[in-house]
């Protein structure tokens, strides 16, 4: 654990709370297993001492900002999470002057579960190109040059080569219990009423059937086309292990290739479905 970095976070958080710059600080604390991390909300200067940061801080805390609209909050943000900040800025869901961003230069996080943590970096961290958050007010940690692996989307290529794709996916979707954890954890999912729970019209039937679930998962992913920032929290929280990254990353790859766009890199850039080019060549051939 980098105690120096943690001390910087705690000092800054305490400072912000003492001066009243923010009403609260969203960060991480040690979970009760004593090994992993969990989200933590500090509202008192003294509570700042509970803040930590290490490679087990896997959660994308930005989602919590959606619930704190109107309040000025400070938040601990990893480079990957900063893309969610940019996404929400672009979609006018948060206001920049209402958020104090404590950016962390992050060397990557590992896979964790209760009382357990792996020693290897998460796959998304291995290809991450960001050595520091894209947007921040206060930067902690040493900015280290990253030696990122090249993003080859080999998982997508493999999934494309599956012999009976419909069968494969219906089997995956067949497991879905529509707990909507994937949606709840996603920083890009914030509709007051999700299409999956709308009655007029009833887009997705109530019964838990593979083809109903397919409509749900297909459209969930499609609503995130050009918006998914790749935190992969959905896949982490899925209780039935549906490989949701294969869905999100497929569209991420296509959006990158067709429209040269990646979500959350620039809050000013128009997302792919907000704009078009008259002379773009988009193939509709077989």
């Amino acid at each position, binding site marked *: 654990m980098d105690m120096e970095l943690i001390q910087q976070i705690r000092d800054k958080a305490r400072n912000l709370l003492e001066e009243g710059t923010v009403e609260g600080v969203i960060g991480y604390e040690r979970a009760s297993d004593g090994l992993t991390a969990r989200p933590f909300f500090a509202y008192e200067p003294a509570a700042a001492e509970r803040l930590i940061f290490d490679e087990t801080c896997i959660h994308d805390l930005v989602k919590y900002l959606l619930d704190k609209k109107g309040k000025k909050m400070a938040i601990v943000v990893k480079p990957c999470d900063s893309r969610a900040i940019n996404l929400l800025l672009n979609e*006018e869901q948060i206001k920049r002057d209402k958020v104090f961003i404590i950016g962390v230069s992050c060397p990557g996080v590992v896979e964790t579960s209760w009382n357990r943590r792996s020693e290897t970096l998460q796959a998304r961290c291995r290809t991450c190109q960001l050595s520091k958050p894209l947007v921040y007010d206060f930067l902690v940690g040493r900015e280290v040059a990253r030696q990122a692996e090249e993003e080859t989307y080999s998982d997508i290529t493999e999934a494309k080569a599956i012999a009976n794709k419909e069968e494969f996916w219906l089997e995956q979707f067949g497991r879905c219990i529509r707990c909507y954890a994937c949606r709840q954890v996603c920083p890009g999912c*914030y*509709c007051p*009423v999700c299409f999956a729970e*709308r009655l007029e*019209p009833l887009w997705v039937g109530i019964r838990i059937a593979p083809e109903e679930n397919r409509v749900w998962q297909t459209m969930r992913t499609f609503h995130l086309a050009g918006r998914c920032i790749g935190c992969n929290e959905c896949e982490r929280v899925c209780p039935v292990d549906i490989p949701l990254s294969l869905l999100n990353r497929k569209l991420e790859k296509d959006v990158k290739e067709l429209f040269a766009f990646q979500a959350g890199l620039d809050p000013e850039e128009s997302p792919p*479905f*907000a704009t078009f080019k008259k002379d773009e060549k988009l193939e509709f051939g077989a």
Partner: protein
Amino acid sequence: MARIGVFLCHCGSNIAGSVNIPEVVEAVKKLPQVVHVEDNKFTCSDPGQASIQQAITEQRLNRVVIGACSPRMHETTFRRTVAGAGLNPYLLEIANLREHCSWVHPDQVKEATAKAIDLVRKAVARVAWQESLTPRQVGITRRALVIGGGIAGIQSSLDVADAGYEVILVEREPSIGGHMAQLDKTFPTLDCSACILTPKMTTVGQHPNIRLMSYSEIVDISGFIGNFKVKIKKKARYIDVSKCTGCGECAKVCPVELNSEFDENLGKRKAAYIPFPQAIPNKYTIDKRGYPPCRVACPAGVNAQGYIALISQGKFREALEVLRRTMPFAGVCGRVCIHPCERDCERGKVDQPIAIRALKRFMADYELKVGKEKATPVERTKEEKVAIVGSGPAGLACAYDLVKQGYPVTVFEAAPEAGGLLRYGIPEYRLPKEVVANEISYIQDLGVDIKTNAPVKNLTEIFDQGYKAIFLATGAGISQKMGIPGEDTPGVLHALDFLRQVNFGTKVSLGSKVAVVGGGNAAVDAARIARRRGVNEITIVYRRSRAEMPAIPSEIEEMEQEGIKIQFLATPGEVLSEANRVTGIRCVRMELGAPDASGRRRPAPVKGSEFTVDVDNVIIAVGQGVDKATLPQDLAYTNLGTLSVDPLTLQTNIDGVFAGGDVVSGPADVITCIAGGKEAAISIDRYLRGVDMKEGRPEIVKRVKEVSKEGVKPEARHSMPTLELGRRKEFDEVELGFDEKTAIAEAQRCLNCAVCSDCRECEKVCEAKAIDHEMQDEIVEADVGAIVVATGAKALDHTQFGIYGGGIHSDVVSSLQLERMMSAAGPTGGEVVRPSNGAHPKEVVFISCVGSRDERTGDGYCSKVCCMYMAKQTIMLKEHAPETHSYIIYTDARGPGGKIFEDFLTRAEKAGTTYMRGQIDSVSQQDGRLSVSGQDFLTGAAFNIPADLVVLATGLMPSEDAANLFQILHISYDAKNYLLQAHPKLRPVETAMDGIFIAGCAVAPTDIPESVAQGGAAAQYVLKLFSQEAIEAEPMTSIVDISRCTGCLLCRQVCPFQAVESETLRDGRTVASINASVCKGCGICVVACRPGAIKLRGFSDQQILAEVMAL
């Protein structure tokens, strides 16, 4: 609970023929919420509609489904029916059982019936979700836009205007009238076209309600029925129509003549023109198409086309005035200019470029020959004194431009005589001193004060004398050295020193053998001077090959004729001497490597290739440089040793001090120096007036796009007469110049690329002061409520039909050309003649359906008017000359329009016209006559008709630009660019766009009465609209449910109509809000809205999903 009634239409047998209606009725009865089903023979008939209304009342129906034809056909009708029974008209859904089912699946009763049941079930599911909608009331701008000033557009405009409403009539040509104005007589009554059209045109021109915008085009249209916004481009016609009296003096003096479009290229018109005498507006237009290539190519922007056009008219003095608008050096540049203009001359693509430089010189020669008048001094209107240092071409050009603008200008020259390099650097046989002196005296006459023997050493002194700006143009006056051993030996001369001494008259003694080192003009000049000084053996040593030699090619040629040799690909390495006397040079051979920065291939020495040349003198001409010693202090230099200036403004590092010419560029040609002086003059003027020196620079000029070379016959360029070789003495000019006859003939070769030559002779004669050569295109915006599109069609270009000899034989003409010949006001004064020889034709063959009804030569449709106009033309030919005999080779002879049309064809036949049904194989020419061969379809025999004239009855087709306009208007058109009607039978003058109506040949080929009828009909629709208090706008617009809106405003980004605004609620939330009066109901935002907060009324998610779920 919905109570749905379903009404199924048989449409006679149109639907019932393929769909088993009873089976559908039984199936539909079982559908949920359907309480009433019935079928009718014709639902759209009165009984059919009455039966719907009765059922609504009796069965208390609150939703109606009608299975019939396409909703695009009768939706409005049935909405009215439903409304008549007290139901909201939008609680109706139509199942398209005819266009989408029975008509496309004949003889498949089982499948078509199943499909019909599906379609009705889908409609029932949808209608259950239908809501009552109320159309919005929208105001109307009661002003019409009519596009196209042919007879259809004229009729529309007059009808709307006479009813008391304003009309904007936009016509892209300079005059209204369209094709009808070109016609001589009209069928079948043979009345004079102009006689019936002209009064209507005049009425348009004078009508208080009509704003005629001729020579204008539509650029953009937005809005919707009753409320369109249009942007109209008024193309610059360079004549102020409010001042022009139509007197035509401008056209009389205009030197540029080109083919008249109105006369179908048979006659001529001027660049300043009116298309025909009865044109409305009766105002002239100047046809200006940008800058000619010669003017673009000239560094100083000299308008060569302008003076050449005037020379061609024998207006030599006026021509010189055109040149002097830009610069004063006709005689100088006419002799020594490197003429980039000739390189770009478009005539060069036909045969050889115009001899522009020689023509320029001719103007100066002519002035000297007839006696020069002293120029009147320019009035001094400005206070600020300008000092110019150096009197070479750059300094004098700058002085010239500034003095003309009213500045007091003084030129300081260090040498005893003004002229700089013009006087001291170029030998007399090429540029006589009197020519230079004459042009300098002209500049002095205008008011420029030239002080000679006045070197300037200190800029502060000049400023102290009250000068507000200084232009440094001291040139690049020192010869560069080669830096080889022996270069300082007496007998080694540097070219500039040598030329200067010769020009000063200093005695220079040379031996009998001279080597000149270098390949530029200075080298050539030095060599030829040496020849004139009696040197026997002269060799130019140049390190590259002939292709890279920078001297003017004609000068090199002349030099070689004078016996001077060139040693290419060699360079001296040492000057050999004995007793301090030159004995020779040792040279090394070179080979060319890769191109260097200048684009020329870099020479490199070949090892062991040394050789020696015996000479008595060496003249070195390898370059010139700036002499820093002669320039004032504190100036900044580039690393090439030239003055450092801002490339755009030419200002040096010192405020108010500018520099140009060789002192900035290094040694360059005369015209580039003049250009530098002119640029500096612009900067100095702006500097003294305190305005931005950089704005709008460099000036972007529009080069003329395409230059027509059609019909240009090759004709060799006139060569420059020169002094015989034996008579060339030191001071005698070698080139002798053109005489007047040659100059005119050469000038007449000019293609007048830009059409208007910008000579501005018209300005002089226009008493109304209506001419403005600087006029710009103007965009006019207007609000209109309705639009009539009557853009017409063009006759196909007959020259594209080579199969019939079109474009190959001059006696194969188009029917419109014949029409122009028949017209008394036409190019032949009403005489029908053979274009090849002017003789009256005896045998005339008409070929019908040229480009029509024949996939071989054009398109498959009938152009409708050709059969009748051919009959008319044969009758008229007989009237013109009774001995004429006409053949009409036809595919079918059609007399559409009933009544007298068929009789008219008979009349033509009775008048002696021979009708032959057949197909043409070829049209050839033998012994000055044409021969038309083909096959007679009725007898099966081949024919071969000798003819004096062949007339091609070319079909009609909308112009290519029409499609662009239709796209701007968002109205549909077909593959041939004809407009599509809202319904081909029932709504012939309406489009699918409400408020846009159509008439005339833009829709399909029509004759005059049809065009007039359609124009009037379109006007009637406009008036119907204008007579309403307000119009109902479709209620199918989008609405935001703010409880679901997240305020992401993606909807605002995708809306093409800026109908979405953001709105802040009291709780601080930001949400989207849609302006229903701007929303057009496309539904793009609905799909963009992830939370489903936006609903498109009439096309809601529920409705469409219900359709999907019903299938």
